[in-house]
């Protein structure tokens, strides 16, 4: 069953908390991974791989550069999940 937007944000928050140590409640749609959430380019790869597993999506490397904010990632997952 496909995840809702709320479930995706909360899942991403868990991932970002695990990887970057940012409190889950600070992970919101408008937040930029790099500028607001201490996720650098290497850690972004970890976020993407964890998100792929959690939500059963495939996020090709070429698309990762377009995922600037939590909202970008959430929309991408909403559109592409099974």
């Amino acid at each position, binding site marked *: 069953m496909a995840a809702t937007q709320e479930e995706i944000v909360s899942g991403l928050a868990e991932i970002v908390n695990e990887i*970057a140590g940012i409190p889950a409640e600070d992970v919101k749609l408008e937040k930029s991974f790099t500028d607001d959430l201490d996720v650098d380019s290497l850690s972004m790869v970890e976020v993407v791989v964890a998100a792929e597993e959690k939500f059963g999506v495939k996020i090709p490397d070429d698309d990762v550069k377009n995922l600037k904010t939590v909202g970008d990632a959430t929309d991408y997952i909403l559109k592409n999940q099974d």
Partner: protein
Amino acid sequence: MNATKTSVVVTGIGATTPLGGDSASTWEGLVAGRSGVARLQEEWAADLPVQIAARAAVEPGESIPRPQARRLDRSAQFALIAARQAWADAGFTARAGEETSVDPDRLGAVVASGIGGVTTLLDQYDVLREKGVRRVSPHTVPMLMPNGPSANVGLEVNARAGVHTPVSACASGSEAVGYAIEMIRSGRADIVVAGGTEAAIHPLPVAAFANMMAMSKSNDDPQGASRPFDTDRNGFVLGEGAGVIVLESAEHARRRGARVYVEAVGQGISADSHDIVQPEPSGNGIAHALENLISRNDIDPAEIVHINAHATSTPAGDLAELKALRKVFGDDMDHMGISATKSMTGHLLGGAGGVETVATLLALHHRTAPPTINIKNLDPEADGDIVRDTARELPDSGRIAALNNSFGFGGHNVVLAFRTV
């Protein structure tokens, strides 16, 4: 001897070792003659011929937050912890540049490891095979590269004069300290954070060292297994941790009013060119390093009262070292109290030179030589004044000097000299 050379002093000390999470607790353990060796509790150890090791007394995760720790190999974690302690001990409260008394362009870092991020490499290979390509951590390369600990320490203090990683197996940590002394002497830097680190307690390195017949298999007597100079010594015990110090030109230290522990007199280096792993049995290679130390630095054998021996508890190595000391120092060797602190810490490989530099500095600072424990029957061929069983006071006044010896597979010989100021 060259009187125009810049004098170098030690102004900060840090360590995390099998005896304690900092240099003070490590020193307490050394003076008390405490062993840091224990039976390995990990499941994998049950299948190995060697089931003992000297784990760090304090897990690095206790002082490094998880998001940072997960992108640092364990060896880099130890290095960072020891470096932070040394930096604070030298009186600094911020990075160079933010700390106005240190110019980042004049600050270097030289932290060595013998093996590098070996646990990261092997763990990620397990991930590759068990979970697939996609799951291999993007942090793998900066975690496994041997210069990772040095680079991370450099980033921590903002070192821009140069960040280096000499690799010479079990001599690496001492070679790093020697390199740092030379950086300051040659005018490349005013201050250098230097030392050694290692974290190789993993089934592959343990199996490999065990199959070389290099390690003690005294699994039933962990605390008594590392016994340098004992007749029944049967190999080294693997340890982990780091020792890092802050070296500084005497002039720079004086200008900022720093507390000075000791003078770092200099280094003597040589190579055996004898065998890839066996020490040259007559000690000639080591003797050459000692001769270089004496001839190239302002130090008099008469003032040397203590030696932190490399002495790993292997049958051949321990004696070659003593032969070399006698050959070079003659009767002067009789006033040098020789301590093998690996009897307590185990052998930290590339970390050994760092931790034993710390032990040597503190021995001078406290004017006390730590003991060599576990000598039940002194090898009759062990020539020299071995400090046995309990710590010994060194002369309580006057200028005294001490050496730290480190040798590595590959035939690398490094000898460092320190002296009270």
